[in-house]
């Protein structure tokens, strides 16, 4: 993974504990500029703690971290100047209107009146919030709130954006809108640090994924690299007759389930291996009701690495 791009985020051996409860047990992270990095993990893995340390909200107990070259512990103000953060819960002012929320950010970034107004209108337009701009976020849908939230973090034109579970609680269309926003930001050269418990999201967006479990990074790489870690591919057959299950399982070296009438055969999903299976079925004269090919996906990776059943993106 060595490339010449400078690192936007670098963390070495970060540790954090609350009393006896160790939340992070030595986390290393490297995110090159202009890429999307996804920290994937179940609830309680330490994702938010990692974001909080990198965004200067809480100090780490050990290790060090740099964002845009500035040390998060010793040079927090320099870090704050270059980042935008969208936390797990919409960080908007519920009593101000959408437009006033953006104006507030502009003033806090000391942009000046004209520039604040210009950027506000541009962001309202870009995030489809023009009509909602006069209303308070209390009346917004989850997706609109999230869009306003991200718009607010863009007012300061940050180089690095932290998105902590940006699509949690959104419906599928809201999620897609956020995804397309993230892709556009990266195209413009922004670095994105994204946490999620949705595998689909990490697979869809990230250049690099790190799986965090129990405060440690248990696997790291591109989505493809991670999928290769798990030899989970197989073909599922559903037979018509129970008395043939054992025979087929034996011939194809698979696992038979007489109750379910299924046979699971390890396979890499290639055409050759499928042809062999089909030939055998023909030769044995067995009636097969259904055949499905299962190639390993991040679910398998997640499951085998963390022992958790992954969260359902559609839940």
């Amino acid at each position, binding site marked *: 993974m060595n490339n010449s791009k400078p690192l936007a985020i670098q963390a070495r051996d970060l540790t954090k504990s609350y009393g006896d409860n160790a939340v992070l047990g030595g986390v290393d992270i490297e995110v090159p500029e202009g890429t999307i990095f996804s920290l994937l993990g179940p609830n309680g893995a330490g994702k938010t703690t990692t974001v909080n340390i990198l*965004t200067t*909200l809480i100090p780490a107990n050990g290790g060090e971290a740099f964002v845009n070259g500035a040390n998060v512990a010793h040079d927090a103000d320099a870090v*704050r100047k270059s980042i935008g953060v969208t936390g797990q*819960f919409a960080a908007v002012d519920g009593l101000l209107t959408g437009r006033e929320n953006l104006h507030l950010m502009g*003033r806090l970034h*000391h942009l000046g009146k004209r520039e604040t107004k210009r950027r506000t209108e541009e962001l309202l337009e870009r995030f489809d919030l023009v009509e909602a701009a006069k209303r308070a976020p209390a009346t917004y849908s989850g997706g609109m709130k999230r869009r306003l939230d991200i718009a607010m973090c863009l007012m*300061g034109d940050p180089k690095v954006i932290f998105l902590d579970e940006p699509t949690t609680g959104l419906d599928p269309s809201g999620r897609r809108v956020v995804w397309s926003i993230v892709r556009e930001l990266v195209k413009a050269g922004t670095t994105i640090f994204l946490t999620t418990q949705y595998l689909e999201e990490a697979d869809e967006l990230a250049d690099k994924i790190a799986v965090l479990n129990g405060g440690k990074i248990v696997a790291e790489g591109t989505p493809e690299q991670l999928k290769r870690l798990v030899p989970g591919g197989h073909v599922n057959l559903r037979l018509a007759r129970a008395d043939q299950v054992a025979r087929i399982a034996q011939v194809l070296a698979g696992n038979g389930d007489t109750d379910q009438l299924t046979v699971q055969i390890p396979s890499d999903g290639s055409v050759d291996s499928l042809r062999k299976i089909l030939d055998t079925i023909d030769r044995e004269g067995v009636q097969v009701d259904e055949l499905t090919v299962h190639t390993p996906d991040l679910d398998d990776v997640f499951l085998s690495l963390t022992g958790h059943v992954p969260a359902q993106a559609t839940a």
Partner: protein
Amino acid sequence: MSTIAHTFADTSTMLRRQLKHMLRYPSLTVMLVGMPVVFLLLFVYVFGGTIGDGLGGPTGGREAYLTYLTPGMMLMAIVAAVQGTAISVAMDMTEGIIDRFRTMSIARVSVLTGHVIASVIQSFLCIAVTLGVAIAIGFRPDADPLGWVGLAGVLVLISFGLTWLTVGLGMAAKTVEEASNTPMPLMLLPFLGSAFVPTESMPTAVQYFADYQPFTPFIEVVRALLFGKAVDGTDLVLTIAWSLAFALLGYVISKKKFNKR
């Protein structure tokens, strides 16, 4: 821009935010103003006739009691307003936007000073309404222009001190409910001081407490200024000292809590 200029700019931004909150959520302000006004009317019209006679002044009765009670009710107005401060600070801290502020390169103290200045303004609103109602039902202050300026200065100082104290209480509270409870003892202090009756009429132990707690000098300085009388030097020193002590205590607590959250 320099750091100081940034702090001023950020404070004014945060103040605008608080003032907008006040306008958007006026029921809290109305509730806060209501308390001292209700106390004023209740004590003047229900208890005032009897207590006024007991004051031993030349006229006695309800009118004399209105004259005695009003300065204390002005302090009560500050107490009511700063209760709201603790609540609104605690409510604000539960909002995600505070965490956003903490990840931005802004003067951190401005979040707190915005609250403090807005709350002092709210205190003045409460004082003005209370004084207005008192005047409407017959209260006649007797201060010269300089006295009014002095009065305003003293009231700013007292509300500044009490506001910082309650910002600290609001920051220290774990929940909004807790924040609405912890400043409650402040409500009792005017009762256990010279707000409703002169402290000489109290039993020795209570009188001892009343004479040495902060609200008695607060009330006596306000009383003297309202009627153009000479302010007792000790009372004035105590008022300034207590106010600054409250402000410092509240500032230290809030700053610690804000950075730690």
